[in-house]
């Protein structure tokens, strides 16, 4: 079979599981088979499922650290610059560089810049907002935000083979398996 024939028109396979235990075991199995372009979807974060899938920890905290430190440094500098250079004026007998009085705003801006970064990078790293996804074509997938658990394996995965992948998902105890149109 050529690569072209091996790649079917379908987007991938969607397998449904009934509880966190089943999907946990299934994810371990799919991970150990060496699949890469695949995902699991759950109504709530199932504890340890990221490890069962072999996912790396999120980079998000590092992004927040960098932007938070930048925001923090900027605000301290800005207060010093605005109060000491742009319009130097003694207020309340405090020196031009009055560090203790700068702490509250410095602190608030550190919090604000970190939180806005955490919020935005969460969606950006996840590729959201994304109005459409092939799984949304499935009627069964409507329960993913309620009480059902799903694994989807994309056809673009090098290891994907419609029959073998289906057999693998079957062996993990999936209750239903359907093909997703792209």
């Amino acid at each position: 079979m050529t690569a072209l024939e091996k790649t079917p028109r379908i987007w991938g396979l969607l397998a449904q599981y009934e509880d966190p235990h089943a999907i946990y075991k299934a994810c371990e199995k799919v991970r150990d088979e060496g699949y890469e372009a695949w995902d699991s979807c759950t109504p709530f974060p199932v504890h340890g499922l990221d490890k069962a899938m072999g996912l790396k920890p999120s980079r998000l905290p590092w992004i927040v650290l960098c932007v938070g430190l930048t925001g923090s440094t900027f605000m301290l500098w800005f207060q010093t610059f605005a109060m000491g250079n742009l319009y130097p004026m003694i207020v309340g007998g405090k020196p031009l560089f009055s560090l203790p009085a700068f702490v509250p705003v410095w602190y608030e801006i550190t919090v604000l810049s970190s939180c806005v970064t955490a919020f935005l990078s969460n969606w950006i790293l996840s590729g959201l907002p994304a109005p459409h996804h092939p799984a949304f074509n499935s009627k069964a997938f409507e329960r993913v935000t309620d009480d059902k658990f799903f694994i989807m394996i994309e056809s673009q995965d090098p290891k994907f083979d419609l029959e073998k992948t289906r057999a693998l998902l079957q062996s993990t105890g999936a209750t239903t398996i359907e093909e997703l149109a792209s």
Partner: protein
Amino acid sequence: MSNPAEASLPNDPNVRGDVALEDPVEGRESLVRGNLSFHEITEKVLAVNEKPVAQTPNAFKAAIAFAGLGFAGFGGYVGYLFWEGPGIWGNNNPVGWAWDIVNFVFWVGIGHAGTLISAILYLFRQKWRTSINRYAEAMTIFAVLAASSCVALHTGRIWMDFYLFPLPNQMGLWPNFRSPLAWDVFAVNTYLFVSLLFWFTGLVPDFATLRDRAKVRWRQLFYGALAMGWRGSTRHWVHYEKAYQILAAFSAPLVLSVHTIVSFDFAVSQLPGWHTTIFPPYFVAGAIFSGFAMVQTLMLPARAWLGLKDIVTVKHIENMNKIILVTGTLVGYAYAMEYFVAFYSGNEYEGFTFINRSFGPYAWAYWTMVSCNVISPQLFWFKRIRTSVTWSFILAFFVNIGMWFERFVITVTSLHRDALVSSWEYFVPVTEPLFLAGTFGLFFFLFLLFVRFFPVIAMAEVKSVMPQANPHWEGYEHGGDHHANAPAAATAGGSH
């Protein structure tokens, strides 16, 4: 596995949540009662939201209309204030700050319970918070909105408010960053914004549930837009949980910092009665105290009307009452300590202010405050009272009143008799009660809309603390049919 105490509960779901379980031997009490499955949680929580708009109960319509009238009235009041200026208030020469600031501190304080529940209890892994956090966070946002409108209006010349923000201008003039009033602008705005981000992040998975279950087009579009295409992907949950943790970690010190900075508005001045170092912790304790009372005031009727007694149980009410008891006692201690320091400092102006506060012309306000804030929460030492829904509601109501009076006492009594006897003046409000009523209108209008259209319980989070949410839960290891009747006895302290 299943808690024997659970079996002894009455079958009627309208009563079950109101029965306290006393079973210290069998472990901690269930957070979710009635052996609910994941799907039943969804059904229960969304029952209110999914009711077609035409079928909204008449009582609810009436409540929304009433609150909307208050909100509209508030708009009218602001227009009147805009037209006439702050002369429509009773503020006089020594009393330059009165109900405007009292209302501001009152509302911003109420917000703090929401953040405490959503952030600090989250970081301390207090799983019971999941049943009440969404509600409390919504309360925070609407309370802080009410607070910001008060503080924006207190300036009198509202159209000059932009000077409070660091906007570039041709004069090269920036806010005075050494002033507590500028700190306050930054603190309150950061607080409002971060609370909104935190709340929205928590809501997204639940919006996705509403989207997936929507039957009509406008709901699909409305909730679909809000859910942003959320599909519960584990690759997303990894980032999501980290972001949520970070937002919680930053919001936790915000609880302490925002009201600390609000207290600086007073404490950094040199006025006897305001110039005290105890203010920051005292204000924070008071804020949490008043906030939990407001959560109770809103939650107790709502859990009965919305049929959520299995999810918000007596256990939750009792826990909140314990926090009210602790913070109420802290507030009482702070009142006593203020008097001791006034006496011990030997400063006669300080001494006079405090004697005048409790025995002067505003003694009635002072003693209202003391009886509501210091005496009433002490009743929560009795288990009978703190596990009683009626008592909780009554006492929470008293605390709300008491905490409003606390801010009134601090602001007005310290000002009305200043150092120059000839300028002493008694402050009498003129149109201010309308101002307070208007902010309540704003608060309740937004809150009722929230209850009607947004999930009031953080479903994804509640599901994740149920025992069957753990992939290694013993029910799975033994195999068998665990779906039909999985015991939903999420224990309060159980680990993942």
